[in-house]
């Protein structure tokens, strides 16, 4: 990536995001990438006057990530999408579709987790 990617942890994420908002950054989107059987990367992309900024949060699949939708409401859609596709849960979602944003019952597993299937059942949540 051309721009620097700043690593964050679930604990520091909240502060960082709030700071971005204070500095007038526009939320672009988040990208989720499966790293291995247990962990995923969540990238947060921001933009200010066409300059991009990225954060990287690496977390285990079966751990809920903190939602940033209370700060950036616009994030609710992509967080729900990640819930659908990766089976990851977000805590404190502004509108929680509970893994029904795109998917019907027929699609049982989290489709974007190709490396393991085993963890999926557990991470599917309630």
């Amino acid at each position: 990536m051309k721009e620097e990617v700043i690593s964050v942890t679930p604990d520091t994420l909240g502060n960082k995001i709030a700071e971005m908002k204070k500095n007038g950054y526009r939320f672009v989107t988040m990208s989720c990438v499966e790293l291995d059987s247990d962990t995923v990367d969540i990238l947060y992309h921001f933009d200010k006057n066409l300059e991009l900024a990225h954060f990287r949060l690496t977390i285990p699949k079966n751990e809920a990530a903190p939602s940033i939708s209370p700060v950036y409401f616009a994030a609710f859609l992509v967080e729900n999408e990640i819930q659908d596709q990766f089976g990851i849960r977000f805590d404190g979602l502004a509108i929680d579709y509970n893994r029904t944003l795109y998917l019907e019952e027929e699609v049982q597993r989290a489709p974007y987790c190709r490396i393991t299937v085993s963890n999926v059942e557990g991470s599917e949540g309630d």
Partner: protein
Amino acid sequence: MARTIIPFGPQHPVFPEPLHLKLVLEDEIVKEAVPALGYVHRGLEMLADIRDYHQMIQICERVCGICSTIHAQCYCQGIEELMGIEVPARAKFLRVIWAEIHRVQSHLLWLGLFADAFGFESLFMQCWKIRERVMDINEATGGNRVNVSVNIIGGVKRDLAPDMTRWILSELDLVEQEVKRLEKVLLHDYTVKKRTVGKGVLTKDQALELGAVGPTLRGSGVAQDIRQLGYAAYGDLSYTPVVAKDGDAYSRNRVRFLETYQAIALVREAISKLPPGEISVKVKGKPEGEIVSRVEQPRGELMYYIKGNGKKNLDRLRIRTPTFANIPPLLSMLPGIELADVPVIVLSIDPCISCTER
């Protein structure tokens, strides 16, 4: 008190696309609007697993049938950047030409649908009649009206001969003439203004906070456009974003309408500066690393996140389309408006569900 609860879509005559809203109304005033998505979700990002990174061009092009070529362009630019490929100058200009022709087509399409949303049938017909000339340009240059399929990694695969560019210019002159005749209607007509001015207001702050992009953002007074970055050949062309400040449906309409002129002007300029030379370079190797590639679609900023790992299949392809970004702003506009204005306001962000859900 009892309220009216209406399913707005998935199949609904004012939206060709399966957009679904649950609307709760009181005396036709929207009290609550909750979207349901997933009617077009295909999961095409995952196709990167079974298609190689060249084949993905065709898939990306079919994320959307309205701005197909710009998707392919964004994807190709991303891969090129990852692999360090320098695209020939002529190809860059050709990409701009096709992209801007697409923008004209897309804006005309939208102007028509917007007119239809407020029941101005003849205006809808007129816009689409004009648009057919642009579709002809697509078909004549790319071989298909919709998926022109010109972008490949390393350049473009079709060239424009001089007599073709001359013909394009003459056709665009006609288009511009006809569009000019609609200016009085779309920007000044009493009934049009009555239906659009002050509807679905999104202030500058809201627009930024909710992450609006494209004409939705520029209609709220923010002069931001990815083309300002000067990707492809935009750096060599004179370009300043079109902005309107009121943030209502009318402003967004105004931005798109004026952008139509601008796009035509950009095509003219690009054709006049079109450099000679190759149109593509040969590609060697496989993409590795991660990249964010952005271009400006007719609907706004399009973003591809691409991660390669040196194999012919990409590790991750993620597409963030403009409508995806414009849905939260849309949700903030809906409560408090009249039912009759729902189509107008929904269309004012130029929604494309197919790319939102992919």
